[in-house]
């Protein structure tokens, strides 16, 4: 088991209180930042990408000071970063380590792949029902077409 707080691996400094999201697929780090609205986050935040990972080759990591997440909030990133682990830190110590899980419904963040879907023509937040969590199949609430992993893009 890889220890993310091992100083040898840390390319950025540790945080006192907050959350670390580790094992983000390297190419989706900015996506995760956008999904969680961290681009306007006002506390200290450190992030890195294309870091070495024994498990995944390359990974990304985000560390936020004094920011904690509700499960529904963090599950939003499950589609962009299904491998992510969430580490809660208090007084420089790891208090919990959990992985993300795919939610039952996905709102706003994914684009419907059907070019003729109304959500791609009017400003309507997208809404999907997750019909298959293993293969990741999203059933559009509006056009009723399935958006799969292979044709998924983020709003």
């Amino acid at each position, binding site marked *: 088991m890889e220890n993310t707080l091992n100083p040898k691996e840390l390319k950025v400094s540790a945080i006192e209180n907050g959350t670390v999201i580790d094992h983000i697929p390297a190419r989706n780090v900015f996506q995760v930042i956008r999904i969680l609205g961290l681009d306007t986050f006002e506390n200290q935040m450190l992030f890195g990408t294309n870091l070495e990972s024994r498990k995944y080759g390359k990974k990304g990591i985000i560390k936020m000071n004094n920011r904690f997440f509700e499960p529904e909030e963090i599950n939003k990133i499950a589609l962009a970063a299904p491998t992510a682990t969430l580490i809660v830190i208090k007084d420089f110590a790891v208090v919990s380590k959990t992985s993300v899980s795919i939610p039952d419904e996905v709102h706003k963040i994914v684009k*419907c792949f*059907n070019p*003729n*879907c*109304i*959500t791609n*023509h*009017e*400003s*309507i937040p997208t809404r999907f029902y997750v019909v298959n969590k293993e293969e990741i199949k999203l059933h*559009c*609430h*509006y*056009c*009723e*077409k*399935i958006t799969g992993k292979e044709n998924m893009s983020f709003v």
Partner: protein
Amino acid sequence: MKNRSLVSINDFTKEQQLRILDIAEDFERNPTQKILEDYVVASLFFEPSTRTRLSFETAVSRLGGRIIGFSDTSSTSVKKGESMKDTITMVSGYSDLIVMRHPQAGSARYASEVASVPVINAGDGANQHPTQCLLDMYSIRKTQGKLENLQVAFVGDLKYGRTVHSLAMALSGFNCNFHLVSPPELKLPSVVKSYIKEKNLDYYQYTDLNEVIPFADVIYMTRIQRERFSDPIEYEKVKNAYILKNDALRHSKDNLRILHPLPRVNEIDVDVDENPKAYYFQQAKNGVYVRQALVSAILGVK
């Protein structure tokens, strides 16, 4: 069903669907009933349609209701760039019910969420056309005396034909078997096939129309459109293979009826029209009774 929108055929339970068919039977016996005199129905056709629009407007007129709306967007604010949300919000302030057709999939679902009055989907792009499905069910029940245990053949463009998808799914609730006749490029989508399988029903796939004629109770013909083929040579190869001619019906069952959502181009030869097994024009007429039933059930007067 009072005040409920109908966007997708699955929005109504099997019992509600059958209830609509029962009310429609009553309208077929007695089509002119002035029960909607106090109502205004908005008919919003963001893209042109002949049968669906005219049959809805006939349905409302025969019931004494008033119709407002448009049959294309050229003379409306949509042309000025008004959003669909604004158009629907405004119209729901003027009317008791909205009937709408729109070229984009999902538009009717969205409209039903925005509008303060119920919405009937009269076709949203390639997605759903539930009133066509109800009138197809009505036509089948009327000609076969039942919806259960039928051998139903779908012929032609099964990939893009939304009426085929909805009807196959609706009939899956009635223990029917499905015979799917199409060129390989235009097979029924796997999502519909798995729906049939989930109901423990069987489907069989064919490329030759003649194979299904001897045992089918219903043959549901559809038009194969040239633009569905990326290679025009492929279209030329198959275009004549799915044409129904009167001669071919010689060895068909007595109760067989030929259905078609119309418009037809050449996939049913005109020599079939005189055959008593041809039912497509009556089918289109049934659309008025079914829409009368639907509008009056949603407005709560039936």
